[in-house]
């Protein structure tokens, strides 16, 4: 027995040899379950989109400028637009190359944009929003010469067009290489699912994706701005948050991407010497929506009563551990046209009075659906307790997202807690889904067929004059906050545990979940 023990200890000691990560390599521990594809025409998930953005440059790039996310020139050095905002000419930089050295021309841009429309997966609707479709693409997306791309869009504000054509979905792929790897007319979709070797012109190249093990990116020697500071980025699959947290504390990884709010709160308080907590306001929001086609919610006073019944502070403090900010507007703080409007504070008496006026002095029973994540579960419990105080009995139904979205898309819910990830950094990306039922998004799902709000959202989206546009959004926000069936709970704060050897992460994550810039990261 003793011999066995000694032998085991000896083997364990021999095996124990683990070093810090190399200086030119960034190692991230993350749950990669969310990774489905790294093809820019298909990828739609937050973290994978950051990888795609690193691998594929676009005509423009989303960048924080004075704290505001703005589309700035990337592969296009400049552009021109007709006064009505419908004809765009993009002029490519000279001498652009893909990572394998192939020249990048207007033909590649045209091919990439048309490819998004032809494949028609998750991101396609954004291009279709611009008025570009698989049917009209020959006339609306074309190359004038090797350096010039023409786009013919619907009349829209410049910021909308320039933001939507930025990566991930606006990432330019190498036409020649993609077509050479086409299988059964899939436009290279299978090929680009797990690598970008030679296919992109971004600062990094995805060289390998071993599913449920790791994703490896290497610096692109042909990137037009020059090589980025890190030679290699490895995203190691670590599905369990606790394991991620142990790995980053131990120095085996540089970043723990998915720590829990509890771990983040602990890090905020303990401030250890080797790692730090990095936070940034998230480009998304969390809301309760009420289907105004259903029973009591047809009455606006009931909607308002619920807005007064919710304890916003309790949700932010207890459920989110202060990793969220109060924002009852549909737009994130600081967006173009954003006005600070937080008129609702928990007021049980007022809520009860409104319910009584609407004819429900004793409340009613309602089904509250949400997904099964811990945060949503906890939010549902707080909301249930808040509503109980004004006599409304909310029955919580937790369901997997597949079931929840089916019900939601069929307008089959009564009340739901959900979130909205922003697709492009423009108020239009929120005004349309939240206020314009005609595009069959959130307003439509909740049967809020309000033409005044829909007209305002449409008009503001097409307005070319900035001042007028801001005024239209102001009117919309002031109307929407009282009339809409949405109760905005908060704007989340996103957080990471980051090794103190990592420099520039604070800059890189600015604008996440919409964008993430790996080129701003280096190591000590």
């Amino acid at each position, binding site marked *: 027995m003793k011999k066995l023990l000694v032998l085991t200890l000896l083997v364990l000691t021999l095996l124990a040899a683990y070093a810090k990560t190399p200086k030119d390599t960034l190692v991230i521990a993350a749950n990669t379950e969310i990774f489905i594809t790294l093809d820019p025409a298909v990828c739609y998930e937050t973290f994978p989109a950051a990888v795609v953005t690193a691998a594929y440059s676009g005509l423009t790039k989303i960048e924080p400028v004075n704290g505001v996310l703005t589309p700035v020139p990337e592969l296009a050095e400049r552009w021109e637009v007709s006064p009505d905002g419908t004809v765009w000419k993009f002029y490519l930089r000279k001498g652009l190359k893909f990572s394998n050295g192939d020249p990048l021309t207007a033909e590649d841009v045209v091919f990439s944009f048309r490819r998004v429309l032809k494949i028609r997966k998750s991101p396609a609707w954004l291009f279709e929003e611009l008025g570009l479709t698989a049917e009209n693409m020959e006339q609306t997306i074309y190359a004038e010469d090797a350096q010039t791309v023409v786009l013919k869009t619907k009349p829209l504000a410049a910021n909308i067009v320039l933001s939507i054509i930025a990566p991930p979905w606006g990432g330019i792929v190498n036409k020649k290489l993609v077509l050479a790897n086409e299988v059964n007319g899939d436009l290279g979709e299978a090929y680009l699912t797990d690598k970008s070797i030679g296919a992109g012109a971004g600062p990094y190249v995805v060289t390998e994706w071993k599913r449920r093990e790791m994703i490896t990116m290497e610096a692109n020697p042909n990137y037009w701005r020059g090589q980025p500071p890190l030679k290699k980025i490895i995203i190691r699959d670590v*599905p369990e948050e606790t394991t991620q947290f*142990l790995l980053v504390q131990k120095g085996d990884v540089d970043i723990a991407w998915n720590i829990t709010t509890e771990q983040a709160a602990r890090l905020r308080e303990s401030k250890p010497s080797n790692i730090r907590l990095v936070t940034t306001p998230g480009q998304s929001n969390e809301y309760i929506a009420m289907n105004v086609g259903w029973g009591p919610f047809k009455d606006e006073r009931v909607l308002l009563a619920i807005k007064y019944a919710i304890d916003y502070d309790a949700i932010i403090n207890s459920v989110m551990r202060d990793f969220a900010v109060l924002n009852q507007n549909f737009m994130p703080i600081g967006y173009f046209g954003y006005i600070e409007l937080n008129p609702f504070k928990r007021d049980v008496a007022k809520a009860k009075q409104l319910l009584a006026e609407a004819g429900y002095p004793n409340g009613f029973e309602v089904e509250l659906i949400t997904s099964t994540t811990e945060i949503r579960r906890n939010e549902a419990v707080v909301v249930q307790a808040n509503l109980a105080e004004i006599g409304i009995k909310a029955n919580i139904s937790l369901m997997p997202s597949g079931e929840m979205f089916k019900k939601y*898309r069929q307008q089959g819910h009564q009340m739901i807690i959900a979130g909205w990830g922003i697709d492009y950094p423009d108020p239009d990306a929120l005004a349309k889904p939240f206020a314009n039922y005609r595009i069959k998004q959130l307003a439509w799902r909740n049967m809020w067929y309000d033409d005044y709000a829909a007209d305002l959202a449409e008009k503001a989206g097409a307005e070319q004059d900035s001042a007028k546009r801001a005024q239209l959004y102001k009117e919309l926000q002031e109307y929407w906050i009282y009339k809409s069936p949405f109760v905005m709970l908060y704007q989340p704060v996103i957080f990471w545990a980051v090794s103190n050897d990592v420099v520039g992460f604070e800059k890189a994550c600015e604008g996440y979940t919409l964008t993430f810039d790996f080129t701003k990261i280096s190591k000590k």
Partner: protein
Amino acid sequence: MKLASFIVKRLFLMLLVLFGVSVLVFVISKVIPADPVGAILGGNAPVELVEDLKRRLGLDKPLINQFFDYMSGLLKGDLGRSLKTNRPVVKDIAEFFPATLELAISATLLSIVLGILLGILSAVYRNKFIDHFSRVFSILGVSMPVFWIGLLLLLLFYFRLGWLPGGGRLSLFVTPPTKYTGLLVLDSLLSGNMEAFKDALAHLVLPTVVLGYSAAASIARITRASMLDVLRQDFIRTAKAKGIGKRLVIYRHALRNALIPVVTIIGLTFGGLLEGAVLTETIFSWPGLGRYIVNALLVLDYPAIMGGTLFVAVIYSLVNLVVDIVYAALDPRMRI
């Protein structure tokens, strides 16, 4: 000859089981009121896009047509394409199964050695210290949650002591061995890559201990009960009366007879481990089949669910077949 016809009969029955399983899983996955395409496209995707993709995937066809499409693919060995990964399910399973197999083999080996040894000792030294120890060990093993033991071991051996790695199958900066079988320990030996061998073995230790421990606990309990039962029988007394040594009586006469229920448990344990152990895989970042199937269930990626379930059914049937053959080898009466 008899054994051969037995195997053929069992294989035929297996086909029936597989057909039954595929019908059942297909019906269940279609009855659930969920929308896998909508879930995969994400909450922001508009209704038209979801409907359009469903059309392109043939999910708007009548159920019976979808079932025949699926079954005709199945007969050609095609398990379909995962809705989520957009890859053939066969390819996905082939990618994740070796990791599961490697862990299942090592955990089963550990559980057999530990379980049978403790079971025998505890039966032979009934009510002595080793018996009490073994019983506490078994009760802890079957009652402690796997994720809890896993995290504790990780905290101690990785975080505090630094003796073992913190999950995964191989360290990031170790060159992986040439792929022959997909089992890293074996492949690194075959390719003579000793660095990878050491590293893969170190990564295997903690998940093996976690899974092997709970399996060893059940094996120890069954072995003990079965041994006690056999030790009380007349032929053991006869053997002892004939003056045969204690060791020989225990190992040759008693153990062989006591092993039959134990083999059943080992078979079931191995079968269970081969379908993947989702909690252990999650804690130790082990890229196995369990997480693949569970995640497919979460988004209702039904080709992956069907493929995964059929695969697990095949594994179970095969393991059961092997268990029956081992029975026959252990107990001549079964061969009659």
